């Protein structure tokens, strides 16, 4: 909502600067900023056009003499509306206009031009660029344009919250400001005109189908109206809020809308041939051509103004073309009504129409304002458009809008505010806002004004009191209460540790979009959760895995020349396991992938380490070691549904908590991947965090020395080393504390389908220093079992 400062000053007597007004309004909850950006208008001054001659070498150009307060300068100008005597916005040589447009001294078709006469667009006021901006005649040449702008066109852009329909008007904003500043407010006359005989009643027959939809409907008639251009004051007033003048009738309606927030509609009375108005819901298949010449297809959600048969307006949203006012109109029927907010809201939404009228009606107009607006419009039509009022009005008000008195308790005010706002301040605030206030013992009884539909409860009054008292004036209470929660303080408390470990290993954390295309989702066979109203095809379903996001990110960076990546993300994935909300399962995952080289060869070492299954396995092992999670088992897993191939489950205490493997090639096409193979992991993060939370207990350090032995077995190539280690460990007789493969050797000398595996065995006892006689029998047993089970031979 654009508020003209001069208009505001018609209602209240204030001497604040525009900036101060803006700050005051913001601190009242009417978020405000200057309507024009003047930051690059500093060099522009007021000029006066002293003389105009035709440009000798160009038909469409004029040669103007512009007086800038000191000198008279030649300026070439092409605007059609330039006239001698005009005051204009003059950009002298050297000024830089919005958009970094620098004014230089120039020769235009042989004539010197020292500056520019600006259009509204060139000074950021509007998009108007057809001619120059003509200023008020009393502007002083040489004054800065910014001053002129602030004084004549000063305006604020307000962001009105939905609870304050009353502030969609200059009067409403003035009321709030006056209440805060504790000053009086002067309004134009909204007085009733007296009449002895109600002639209007005989000229139009108005009926309502449902008073619920339209609690109040007022109509008045003015005849002999001269529809034509508005007087300058009216044009300027509308322009100061960014509106264009159309004709005097439309302008009057708009003026009242912007002044007091009451939408009205003016019909050409002669075009309502039935001389009857019936307000009813639309029928299915009914349609109307509205003022903007669009045909609107209606449904029972919309409320209509009809002539008894056909619609002539969509109530509270837009008038119909068939009864619209034009140059030839003379007798006008004015409608001021109060429509039920939800009805207008629903209708406007259905039709996809947001108009100045609907915006106000759907938030709640002032039911008493309808009548005031009617008298104001009639007066203006008489004053401005030579109209003659036909005595009487029709005022249907079958469903009186009630506003109950509300009790405000001192106790409640003190608890909620946290401070003691003085009695006088409470009463003054509420009275200033238009409430009738009665003070009782420890409480106030308030009746809010008709224009504040948002004040319904005690807490609403408290808000008003605190708001006017000033949020700044409420002290901060540093007396903080103690501990109150005996439950879990943060269920994710080990997450930071996991993130720190993974980033320490070189993984980068990413956040990716939870909304994905069905194409990407279809890489895996999970039943996804789909949106009814997606933003686009690319974001129509909820992710079922974190892998797509990780792969997309790897691919994005790959294309930008970053070929080696270790990425991880944590977050929810979603599955529609059964129908309805109950059937939606949200699962918290931690997934990651590695692509390219973990370590690259360098000047220090020729060795490089590409991403591989074993890299991921190593990372997972190291992560678990840091988290103190023991007894991990990796088992081959044939299922490829989670998006990994050569998958292994990661089990802790025989429970699967995650998977490692190679990222499935199913993703390649569906995600248009350019990257090569990558390896990844996926964990159930809830389980992982739970395991990471378990406290590990201290074990005494073993002081006796360990004994290291190597065994080198030759066995069949196909036998997994892990199985040999497993068998060795099982036969360690409590003194084998670790066994680790150290090399694998392949050569025809040991047989083509064989390999030699060297294994390091470490023996240690917590009770004594081991000797050969303790270790040898265990080693012999290990050799025997391994040889037998795997047909292995010692090398």
């Amino acid at each position, binding site marked *: 909502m654009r508020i003209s400062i001069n208009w505001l000053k018609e209602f209240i007597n204030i001497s604040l600067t525009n900036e101060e007004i803006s700050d005051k309004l913001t*601190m009242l*909850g009417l*978020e405000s900023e200057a309507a024009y950006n003047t930051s690059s208008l500093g060099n522009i001054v007021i000029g006066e056009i002293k003389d105009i001659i035709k440009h000798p070498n160009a038909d469409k150009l004029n040669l103007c003499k512009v007086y800038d307060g000191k000198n008279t300068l030649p300026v070439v100008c092409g605007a059609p509306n330039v006239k001698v005597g005009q005051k204009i916005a003059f950009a002298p040589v050297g000024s830089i206009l919005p958009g970094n447009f620098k004014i230089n001294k120039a020769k235009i078709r042989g004539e010197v031009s020292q500056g520019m006469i600006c259009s509204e667009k060139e000074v950021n006021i509007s998009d108007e660029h057809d001619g120059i901006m003509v200023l008020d005649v009393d502007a002083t040449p040489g004054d800065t344009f910014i001053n002129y702008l602030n004084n004549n066109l000063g305006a604020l852009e307000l962001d009105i919250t*939905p609870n*304050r329909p009353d502030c969609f008007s200059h009067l409403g904003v003035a009321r709030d400001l006056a209440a805060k500043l504790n000053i009086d407010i002067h309004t134009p006359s909204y007085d009733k005109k007296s009449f002895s005989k109600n002639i209007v009643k005989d000229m139009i027959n108005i009926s309502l189908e449902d008073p619920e939809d339209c609690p109040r409907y007022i109509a008045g008639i003015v005849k002999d109206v001269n529809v034509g251009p508005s007087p300058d004051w009216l044009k300027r007033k509308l322009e100061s809020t960014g509106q264009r003048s159309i004709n005097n009738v439309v302008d009057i309606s708009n003026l009242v809308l912007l002044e007091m927030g009451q939408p009205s509609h003016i019909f050409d009375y002669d075009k309502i041939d039935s001389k009857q108005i019936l307000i009813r819901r639309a029928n299915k298949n009914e349609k109307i051509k509205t003022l903007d010449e669009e045909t609107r297809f209606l449904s029972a959600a919309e409320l209509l103004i009809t002539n008894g048969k056909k619609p002539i307006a969509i109530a509270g949203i837009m008038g119909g073309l068939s009864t619209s006012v034009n140059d030839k109109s003379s007798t006008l029927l004015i409608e001021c009504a109060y429509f039920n907010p939800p009805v207008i*809201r*629903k209708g406007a939404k259905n039709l996809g129409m947001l108009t100045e009228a609907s915006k106000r009606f759907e*938030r709640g107009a002032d039911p008493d304002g309808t009548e005031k607006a009617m008298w104001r419009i009639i007066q203006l039509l008489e004053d401005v458009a030579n109209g003659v009022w036909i005595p009487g009005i029709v005022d249907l008000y079958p469903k009186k809008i009630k506003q109950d008195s509300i009790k405000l308790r001192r106790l409640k005010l003190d*608890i*909620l*505010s*946290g*401070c003691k706002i003085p009695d006088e301040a409470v009463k003054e605030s509420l009275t200033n806002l238009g409430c009738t206030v009665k003070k009782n013992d420890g409480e106030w009884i308030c009746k809010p004004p008709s224009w504040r539909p948002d004040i319904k409860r005690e*807490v*609403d009054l*408290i*808000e008003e009191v605190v708001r006017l008292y000033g*949020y*700044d004036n*409420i*002290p901060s*209470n*540093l007396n*903080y*209460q*103690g501990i*109150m*929660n005996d439950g879990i*303080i*943060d*269920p*994710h408390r080990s997450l930071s540790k996991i*993130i*720190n470990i993974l*980033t320490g*290993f070189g993984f*980068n*954390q990413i*956040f990716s*979009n*939870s*909304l994905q295309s069905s194409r990407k989702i279809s890489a895996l066979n999970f039943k996804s*959760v789909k*949106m*009814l*109203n*997606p*933003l686009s095809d690319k974001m129509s379903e909820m992710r079922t895995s974190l892998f797509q*996001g990780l792969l*997309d990110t790897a691919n*994005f*960076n790959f294309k930008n020349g970053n070929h080696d*990546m270790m990425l991880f993300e944590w977050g929810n994935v979603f599955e529609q396991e059964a129908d309805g*909300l109950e059937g*939606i399962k*949200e699962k918290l995952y931690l997934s990651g992938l590695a692509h390219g080289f*973990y*370590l690259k060869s*360098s000047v*220090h070492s020729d060795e490089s380490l590409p991403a591989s299954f074993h890299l991921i396995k190593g990372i997972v092992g190291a992560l678990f070691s840091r988290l103190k999670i023991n007894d991990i088992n990796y088992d081959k897993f044939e299922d490829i549904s989670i998006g990994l191939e050569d998958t292994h489950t990661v089990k802790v205490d025989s429970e699967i908590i995650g998977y490692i493997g190679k990222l499935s090639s199913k993703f390649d096409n569906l995600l248009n991947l350019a990257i090569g193979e990558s390896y990844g992991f996926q964990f159930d993060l809830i389980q992982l965090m739970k395991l990471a939370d378990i406290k590990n207990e201290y074990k005494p350090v073993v002081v006796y020395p360990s004994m290291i032995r190597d065994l080198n077995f030759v066995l069949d190539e196909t036998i997994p080393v892990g199985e040999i280690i497993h068998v060795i460990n099982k036969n360690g007789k409590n003194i084998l504390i670790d066994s680790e493969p150290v090399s694998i050797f392949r050569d025809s000398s040991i047989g083509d389908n064989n390999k030699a595996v060297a294994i390091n065995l470490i023996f240690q006892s917590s009770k004594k220093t081991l000797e050969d006689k303790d270790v040898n029998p265990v080693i012999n047993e290990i050799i025997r079992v391994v040889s037998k089970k795997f047909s292995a031979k010692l090398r």
Partner: protein
Amino acid sequence: MKLKESIESVRNQFRTDSDPFPSDEASLNSLRIKYIGRKGLIAGLFSGMSDVLPKDRPLAGQLLNELKIEINSFFYEKSNVSKKILTKENTDTSLPGINIPTGHIHPLQQTLDQIKSIFSDVGFSIAYGPEIDDDFHNFGALNFPPEHPARDMQDTFFIDPETVLRTHTSNVQIHLMEDQDPPLRYIVPGRVYRNEAISYKSYCLFNQVEGIYVDKKVSFSDLKSMLEYFVKRMFGDNTKMRFRPSFFPFTEPSAEVDIWSEKRKEWLEILGCGMVDPEVFKSVNIDSNIWHGYAFGMGVERICMLKYGIDDIRLFYQGDMRFLEQF
């Protein structure tokens, strides 16, 4: 004790001989032979042990061993240095260090962690809740009547007419108050969704942290002090801030908190807050005559953008390493 003196003299001699440490293989070898060769100085000292009185032998042995370890480890260290470097005349210290893989914690995570820690420090617990929820928890219970204009503010993704992608983590407020009796004090981080066109300043989802505190006497004054404390910890002790009246369906009175940007010379909105609306308490059967509360909500992205001067929200979700590596 003669041996002790001999040990010290050999040590000093070695320190002189080994500085500078020989750079060619031949002189390195002769140095090795001189001290730790089979007939070297150390071996000579050991053979002198027999002349030491039995009572002095343990100490002498210990001293001699120490010298042997010192010299041995000296050779070990020096010769273990990468051959590439050793074979050159000098160690080229201007070469870059060995490349250690480095990962980076996402700026949103860092900001979220900081927010969490500030509030846990003063006694807030942390709770999480569903991203997909029913209309009641996301709107109804939070005093958004079906036709309320505030729904204009949040255009929502629907799964079905009764199920939405939550538009704020306030839905968890409702779950918490349904599940436990006051007093309670929580912050609720999580992803929330808005059906908005994607641009540099808005994304279809963002991370929010909601806070709620319900007790018998909770005031607007308490809310102010809490958020002042938060802002100071998050943005620095000298941060200028203001509370200005605003409107949310689930709080009354409501406020918006701005901080002053000296760089941009303007107030920047960082969070919304207010006193829990009695209608919200009513929907979870908490008596608003006894219990009062405050609530606040902030966008992690917004706070992070202000903190680091990031000007495009999409950067957070693009995963561009050139961006992430800066944090």
